[in-house]
């Protein structure tokens, strides 16, 4: 059946099966491979994209259900004004390793930033509990997000570990 999808500002007219998953459509039909597949059941967050400004797990979201709402992916966010701030904070805190989870974290972040929801470190810990990362140990990601959101660093964290040379003896 014919579907009209608005993705990152562009309109796509697509013939899709009734049960086509948004993740597959983005990756296989539109070549937007920034959203990743991992757990396939809304646990890991690597496939997170926005539908009408709301984060969804696109591995379990029917493409049809996007309706008239715009779909935003990491490719769109990365090209938007203001992404440089995100890049700078993730660079500063070295907040990624294999990178597989990173687009999902960033797409979870985007609407939270827009709404000003993140006011404390605890807010970050709550809002990102649905994004898994198996590499970093999370702290650097939380530090980076806090910096982007203007949240003060955790006590003892500002100088010690994120300084260029780390703690040494």
């Amino acid at each position: 059946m014919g579907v009209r999808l608005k993705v990152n500002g562009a309109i796509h007219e697509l013939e899709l099966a009734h049960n086509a998953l948004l993740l597959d459509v983005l990756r296989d039909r539109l070549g937007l491979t920034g959203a990743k597949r991992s757990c396939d059941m809304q646990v890991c967050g690597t496939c997170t994209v926005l539908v009408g400004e709301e984060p969804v797990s696109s591995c379990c979201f029917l493409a049809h259900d996007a309706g008239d709402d715009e779909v935003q992916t990491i490719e769109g966010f990365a090209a938007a004004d203001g992404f440089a701030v995100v890049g700078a904070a993730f660079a500063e805190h070295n907040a990624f390793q294999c990178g597989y989870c990173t687009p999902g974290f960033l797409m979870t972040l985007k609407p939270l930033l827009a709404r000003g929801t993140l006011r404390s470190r605890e807010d970050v810990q709550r809002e990102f509990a649905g994004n898994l990362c198996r590499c970093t140990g999370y702290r650097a990601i939380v530090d980076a997000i806090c910096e982007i959101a203007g949240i003060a660093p955790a006590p003892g964290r500002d100088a010690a570990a994120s300084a260029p040379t780390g703690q040494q003896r």
Partner: protein
Amino acid sequence: MIPAGTAVGRSVVRPDLAAKLSGAAVYGADLPVAGVLHVKLLRSVVAHARIAAVDPAAALEVPGVVAVVTAADLVDLDATWGHYVRDRPIFADGVVRFAGEIVAAVAAETEEAAAAAVTTIEVEYDELPALLDVAAAAAPGAARVHDRAPRPGFACPPGTELGMDNAFYHHGLQHERVAEVDEAGAVVVQHEYIFPAVYQYAMEPHVVVASWEPDGISVHSSCQHPFLVRQELATVFGLPLERVRVRVPFVGGGFGSKSYTKMEPVAVAVARAVGRPVRLVNRVEDAMVTTRRHGMRCRMRTAVRPDGRFVSRQAWIWMDTGAYADNGPTVTMVAGMAAVGPYRWDRVDIDAACVYTHLPPSGSYRGFGAAHLQWVGESQVDEVAALLGIDRLELRLRNLLDRGETLIPGQRPLDADLAGDLREVAKRLDWGGALPAWRGRGISVGVSPAGVSARSAARVELRPDGRVMVLVGSQEIGQGARTVHAQIAAEVLGLGMERVVVLPTDTDHTPYDRSTGASRSTTVAGLAVQRASERLRTALLAAAAEHGGVPVDELTLRDGRISTGKRSWDIAELAAAGPIGADGDASELTGAGPALFWEVCVAGAEVSVDPETGLVEVPRVVTVADVGRAVNPSLVERQDEGCTLQVIGNAFFEEMRFSEDGVLLNDSLLDYRVPTLTDVPAEMICVIVENGDGPGPFGAKGCGEGVFGGLTAALVSAVTDAGVPVRELPMSPDRVWRWIQQTTSDTAPG
């Protein structure tokens, strides 16, 4: 602390930042492949059975299906694989030996068609009794999982004895430091211990794109060891090495799950059958039955003199390697070594056995061996300390080996200051300070053999555009190998990081590297990069001397420019006529392995136990990254923190559960929980120790795995200190609660 160089010793920004943040980084499943067929696998639903019949007729009727491939399509090949033991059929050949074994593959034009078709293949199983318990499988007279004598694989060390029993491989360590070991009057502790099967969960499951072409096999794979995959495929499919090409894109995490060969043989077998490129993408439920960490059972005995001097350590260890060996013998060897502990024993007597069962195969997972056994040995040290009334730290310091002492005869002597590392931990744990009830501190020390092989080579080339290309076969699996290798080349060549590019691996062009594992990328592959860069530097200076007509010793190379007095040239000018390249390798690293260096496993922790629920919280962990020289301190810290979270998962809740029939019960991330950011300890302190004592570039040695041995043991030690003795992992709330009840009833009056 060692002063930073221009690039080495600095937490430079990873060159893959922009690609990974923007979604542009290409992983295996992102590769566009024209005309590709999608592969879905039919896996056995029973643990042990004879296959009476496979009927693919219905599957072949599904629109879009091109082929169903089974063992019957490979009869012209010796279609078994395995680098250590060649025991694993590509498709089950008459018998299935674990629930999850690959029985058939469907290749179809779409993933949906393949998925729909695979469920329609009819398989008739004649079920057989399954051996699911490692001790039962290892018992004398047990039925055999494999009825043929084990065949050594291409990477099996010469002289290795492989037996006919399920316990087909033993690693024994027997040595005496004194002639007459006297245990009279010694305090003895002896118990049995259990470690569960766990799952690595690299977030990107295995992906293989394979094609069978007239001139050979071409594979893109999310693998850690492409050169060993090449060798395996060449062996199985009867081709010379140069007709097998393996390329590796960005890899979404490995942790050992993508070491050696995994999904490549089946993908290639399907490509060969259909004559078109195929793509095979695992799901989590596939990945969990592809490889896992060995479950372990162990009996250990430790004897210590009343004055606190260690006498003897004995251990009998059974590692459940599942139905196929994978890297089990290596894991077993390292487990045996970890059982010893870095102490001055009069006598050591260890037997570690690698045992076949009818469970899914086990292989490498970060910190293997040390993760399994360090907590066992260290908990006995703690127990002895309590019996003798000696402080746990003090007892360790009295018995620790010094730098240069022999740990295991025939292996590299100890090459680290373990006592110094332990004191660093103690200081940050406020060791000796009072704690409220149900809180505890733990500390642990160990070492694990790392490096494994000196077989790493590199080529460094100055290109006409003025950039330097580094060709080295370490895989970028997230750890930052490409960043570190760029830093090493930049440091030696006096270049900015922006002018150094580390290329992805293509076995047709990249110099040989044995493997991305055993913490060897910085130390071993990094040394090859350093040596190649030094040769290139020499070549550039010689070329510049000729170019400018000045003696070499009057030239300096900095910031990409060669200078003499007031004249200077950009090095790009030297390469105007073509690239200038140099090769290097790590062959100077001596020793046959496995210990090219000892990875330090020292950590501490503080915990709080809730006696009502059995829930353990971890307010503080201290890890020691004794890395010799931190090429990139921030990457070192990230290794320790990432490993810390994996340890917390393994120690407190991760556990693969199997039914009574040997079927994996928790085969999804809903049922198999991994740590989220709510599990991050309030304080994670990573102490980077730089003694310049590593054999790698600039005195570096590897890191990233030691935390698994050290912190697992420290957490066990801390929970025990809080009042709950631990003999089994994970320390899940239900277990901890039961142990509390048992301890309470054991000590109740009457």
